[in-house]
């Protein structure tokens, strides 16, 4: 355990991200150990989602800096290569692909991740187990991927994908948004179940709410493209009470000084 703490499962160093020449993420350092859960909290528009997309390898972003997964430099890899190595991004807004069934998509994704053609029977069993764990009706399998799904359904499907793909590191972007309290409990339980003691997790969130169900080991406060403070779970509660503004003042002050 202590060894794995020494080599983080995921890390990034001095990551900058620009969109069409405008810098959004202004130098981020992060280390997540195996089995650790980190929360990245920040106000809307601070660049959290951009950071998550950049870490996954979004081709439309200009990214500098070094990103490592289990000690391997993945900075130059395409998104699909990162995914096959075990990086996962749970989308804030999962994308609809009409005409492609959930089942055929999941099987293709599992096969890609495992580097083998997952047999139909084995796949069906795993899919059904994942459906049950997340309280998803069986007819999900035949529906078109995220097409006409409610917000809650999309989020469940994201977590189900994570469970089936067994990532080493999961980036979860606003997984709690659009969920009512019952759905939030189910989804959180799904995350806890799927991640266990080996997987690293980075939860990107605006609200503290989800952290009542997925307990973070480390909380980072992210503002204006930077991590401005890092602490334990208590930091999340402090944010809940005081909001972000008091930290905004400290950033301005430190930037000025």
């Amino acid at each position: 355990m202590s060894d794995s703490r020494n080599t983080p499962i995921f890390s990034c160093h001095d990551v900058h991200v620009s969109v069409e020449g405008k810098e959004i993420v202004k130098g981020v350092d992060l280390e997540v150990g195996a089995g650790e859960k980190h929360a990245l909290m920040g106000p809307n528009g601070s660049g959290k989602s951009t950071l998550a997309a950049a870490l996954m390898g979004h081709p439309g972003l200009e990214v500098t800096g070094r990103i490592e997964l289990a000690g391997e430099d993945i900075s130059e890899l395409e998104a699909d290569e990162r995914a096959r190595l075990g990086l996962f991004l749970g989308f804030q807004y999962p994308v609809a692909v009409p005409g492609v069934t959930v089942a055929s998509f999941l099987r293709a994704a599992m096969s890609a991740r495992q580097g083998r053609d997952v047999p139909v029977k084995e796949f069906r069993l795993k899919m059904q187990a994942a459906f049950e764990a997340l309280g998803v009706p069986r007819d999900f399998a035949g529906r078109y991927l995220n097409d006409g799904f409610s917000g809650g359904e999309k989020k469940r499907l994201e977590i189900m994908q994570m469970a089936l793909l067994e990532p080493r590191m999961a980036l979860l972007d606003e997984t709690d948004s659009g969920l009512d309290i019952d759905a939030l409990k189910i989804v959180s339980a799904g995350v806890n179940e799927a991640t266990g003691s080996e997987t690293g997790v980075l939860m990107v969130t605006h609200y503290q709410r989800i952290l009542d169900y997925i307990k973070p080991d480390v909380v980072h406060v992210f503002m204006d493209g930077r991590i401005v403070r890092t602490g334990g779970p208590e930091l999340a509660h402090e944010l809940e009470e005081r909001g972000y503004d008091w930290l905004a003042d400290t950033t301005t002050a430190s930037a000025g000084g």
Partner: protein
Amino acid sequence: MSAERIADLNQDYATRYGFSDPEEFLHKAPKGLDHETVEMISRFKEEPDWMREFRHQALDTFLAKPMPRWGNSELLDGIDFDNIHYYLKSSEGSANDWDDVPENIKRTFDKLGIPEAEQKFLAGVSAQYESEVVYHSINENLEKLGVIFTDMDSALARHEDIVRKYWATVIPPEDNKFSALNSAVWSGGSFIYVPKNTRVDIPLQAYFRINAQNMGQFERTLIIADEGAEVHYIEGCTAPVYSTDSLHSAVVELVALKGAKIRYTTIQNWSNNVYNLVTKRAHAHEDAVVEWVDGNIGSKLTMKYPAIHLLGERAHGEVLSIAYAGTGQHQDAGAKMIHAAPNTSSRIISKSISKDEGRSSYRGMVKVHKGCHDCRTNVECDALLIGEKSRTDTFPTMEIAEDDVRVEHEARVSKLADEQLFYLQSRGLDEDQARLMIVNGFIEPFVRELPMEYAVEMNRLIELEMEGSVG
């Protein structure tokens, strides 16, 4: 299924369909078109006088009519009518037994998998090579029920009365320049008659193959479903890859009498040197249903707008089409619905994919005549663009002369979205796989309507076309 399809990735049109056999023929008309050629074709076929006269008149119409000024004029003007063989007969008569088909032709159709398909899932097969149907068979049980499925030339010889009764009643030669051309030099094609209240449960199929260079294929198909009858007809087409152009100009007439149902499915996969200029039209009488399921994957230029004239109350028409245009291709396709009776309904779903420098156009018309109350029509056009240079255009026309109708029209153009690609790639699918999955999803509503074997083939064709596509 996806794994099998991916295993096929290395095959391509040239090896699978684009091969050519040495030309062997009994009779080949010299290049060019005049009354002498028409006379020769008609005499060769020992046709009745009315047909010979019909041909000559149609030729005059063809010569008098100017080339259409819409569609793709530049490509249309490139057709050299003097550099085409209008008739080519490769074998003696049409065989009913596969063993009697000449060896070289048999090899071709074997390669294309035709006899195999017949054994597996078809009730009848017709195979046309150049101008003539070379093989024909029909399930005995259907024959006992009085179903006629034969090549057009034999139908004219053996069922002249019924052929003459319906001939050119749906598409007269004067309809357009290419229907006139077909009327003058037609050869081959299918004739189907399904008697009253008879259902043909298994599809009947025709396969069209052009082998010779600078060839013109002008098949003529007439399908009559008598009252309460039902039939599904499927056609497929391929040709060798040549550097010079060939011309395929068919006329297809469907007559669905009271309460009848006809579905006509096409998977057109001509090589990219073939002009595909086809006129297809149906008459749907009272309570009849006509469906055109039209897939255009190949050809250099396709201009085809399957039409349904809803002539009787409660008739229903549907056109479901998909067009794929890669570099060097223009698919100008669409549909026409003419509501000529009250309480009729129609639906058009048109999907197109334009990739690289490919171009697709949707050209459609919906017309509701005065007095045709309570009509419903729904048009959906969906275009997918892949790559910066691909192009799509939509030309919808609506002529509604009645107030009491429900008209819905929806048109969408989407680019193969980077966000979709990123989403799928973030799950481990590589770019090609992701792209193929998106395109297959896009055409799924079309593929779903095909018989299983065709659905597999369709997905495979799209995969071949998508191969190595980089946006």
